[in-house]
């Protein structure tokens, strides 16, 4: 079973995304900020990470930079799922090494498609 890490400070979204992943046959992990997310990523080595950007303690940008620094985690696909929708935000996210950049709100089916895409590429 593929492991997906969901890093999101909003509990409601976290739970919705988690539910969607679970019913789609994935194992979901949760973290409420980048710092905890980094810890969990190192520990659990997820197949894909869905990550918010605006979060307390360590935001999505900080998280991906740290993640890419570590050779063990540097290749894990990261999907940014964020309310930051401007072109600059998207460009910045991609420049930092995000594999996909999705803006909120999003249909769960669309999110699932992207997750599967990332998993397919990985395979």
């Amino acid at each position, binding site marked *: 079973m593929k492991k997906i890490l969901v890093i999101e400070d909003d509990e409601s979204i976290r739970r*919705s995304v988690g539910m*969607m992943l679970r*019913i789609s046959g994935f194992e979901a992990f949760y973290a409420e900020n980048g710092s905890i997310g980094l810890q969990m990523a190192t520990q659990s080595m997820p197949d894909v990470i869905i990550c918010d950007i605006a979060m*307390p303690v360590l935001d999505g940008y900080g998280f991906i930079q740290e993640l890419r620094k570590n050779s063990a985690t540097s290749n894990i696909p990261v999907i940014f799922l964020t309310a930051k929708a401007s072109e600059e935000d998207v460009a910045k996210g991609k420049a930092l090494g995000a594999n996909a950049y999705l803006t*909120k*709100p999003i249909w*769960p089916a669309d999110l699932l498609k992207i997750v599967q895409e990332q998993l397919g590429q990985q395979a």
Partner: protein
Amino acid sequence: MAKKASLSTMTEQMQTDISSQPSAFLENSLGSAQERIAILEQRLAEEVNHRIDVESRLHRSTQEFEYLLHQRTELLQELVMQLQAEIGQRDGVEHQLRKRTDVMHDFIKQLEQEMEDRRSVESSLRRSEERFRNVIEKSPVGICITNQQSLFEYVNPAYCALFGYEAKELQGKPFSMLFGVDELPQVESLYRRIFNGQAEMRGERTLLTKAGQPITVLTDSVHSTNDSANGEDDGKKLIVFVLDITRRKQAEDMLRRAKVIIDKSPAVIYQFSLKPNFPLEFVSENINQFGFTAQDFTSGAISFLHHVHQDDRDKVFDSFRHLSKTKADHLRREYRLITRKGRTCWVEDSLMAVRDADGIVIGYQGVLLDIDERRRAEEEMNKALLKEKELIELKTRFVTIASHEFRTPLTSILLSVGILRDFSHVINEEERLESLARISNGVHHMTGLLDNLLMFGRAAAGEIRPKRSSMKIRSWCANFAANVQERYGQKHTLLYAPPVREQDYVVDEGMMRQILDHLLSNADKFSPDGSPVYFNVNLDDEKIVFHIQDSGIGIPLDDLPRIFEPFHRGTNIGNIGGTGMGLAIVQKMVEYLNGSISVQSDLGKGTTFTVTLPLASPFEQGEPLMADSF
């Protein structure tokens, strides 16, 4: 003589007879000799007698002569004396005569000198007359001679040129032909009065040229009694002098107008030379707008530069230096001027260099403009612009943040809707209900957010008017505290310290309740279960002070300055929900009640908010009391 001659002849005869006939002769001669001697003796006697006679006569005569001589001598002496006396007299006369002669000489000399002078005077008179004629003929001043009938008798060329006539066109014509039709009725009587010495010609007047062009002239006149060449007095004349001052008049008019314009304009014109301290040589009267008179500066009583603000003097000197060192002619600068009353006033000075033929600066002139108002307006505008800019930035940030804040619940809703729609076949009942609940929560959250946004927007735009309501503080607070405790339930104990006395208070009760609700709700949200929350109410004569103290997570130092900004949420709040609008709204409402709010926080230990509201009613008298809240 005759006797002498006969004697010598007789002697010679006897000598010849002796030599030639000695004896005869002797005898003869003796006889003849005797005879002759006798004759001689006779003759001698006669002679002697005669001589005696003569001598006696001589003697007599001598005596007579001597007598006569004596007489004559005496007479002569007398005469001499007389003569001497006469001579003496004559000397006096001569002296007098000489003196008179001298006087006469002097007189003659004088006469000659006078004649010479007179000749010279006559000649210079002739020359003078010539010159005079020349002067009159060539004079730039129009000169005419008119007679009693006001007819021109003489006009000089300048006069003709001035009015565009030939001399012959004017001679014999009336003086009034130079006047406009409107003036004609008065001209004759005026002329008569002038002619009779009852009025003066002197002054400015407008006359007409041959072409009908009005010209402004300066006129004056003198009377003259003219003796004609044949000795007949042909009567009194008026000599009129006319000077064309049209151009001068126009220039004067322009100058006067310029002066009025300058003096009425806000721009002060000045000029100064390069003497020490740069004394002003000219400054327009409107310098009085700064409380000075022009003379204050031109007399040297006040130095202009001393009235330039101390901090700006270098700038002013620099501009002088700049103009004198470069070829620039013009420089505009703004500096502060200290008016006579000591007020600081911003001025704009357009400085120009005055240069000689070699380009050397010999002075400066400038135009000074009071720009104090403009400058202050600019400052105000800059402030306003800055505020506007800040507002725009705030708005942009507000919109960005608001969009983010809306996207979050929308995301939650869309995900849940998506699950219900696309995954309905795989979810169980619990998951379905959970999804529906999240949708509902998301909508509520968004509604709350919208309400807060609208509230904040209205508050920021000044559209909230506090509603007046009356209450008793002590009892109201007790009631409020009880309600809060009910909401807290078991989670927190509200430790309420009431005010020491009861006080009537007119306030917007709803607004005050919202403020306290927000703060007590935050205390609940950000502090661990079981921790107490303190709610102290203090009253003095002027104000009510509320302290809300929790033992919660506290606010990081970096966040403290920003906690009242819309959407700003502490970086340490983790999962604790909220819109980030609460404190922003609280602050706005406190402002509307003329109060203040402050915060003190220790990270990890707790936070205390202090709200101070004035007891003095911010409400206008007579405004109806309302018990409404929003």
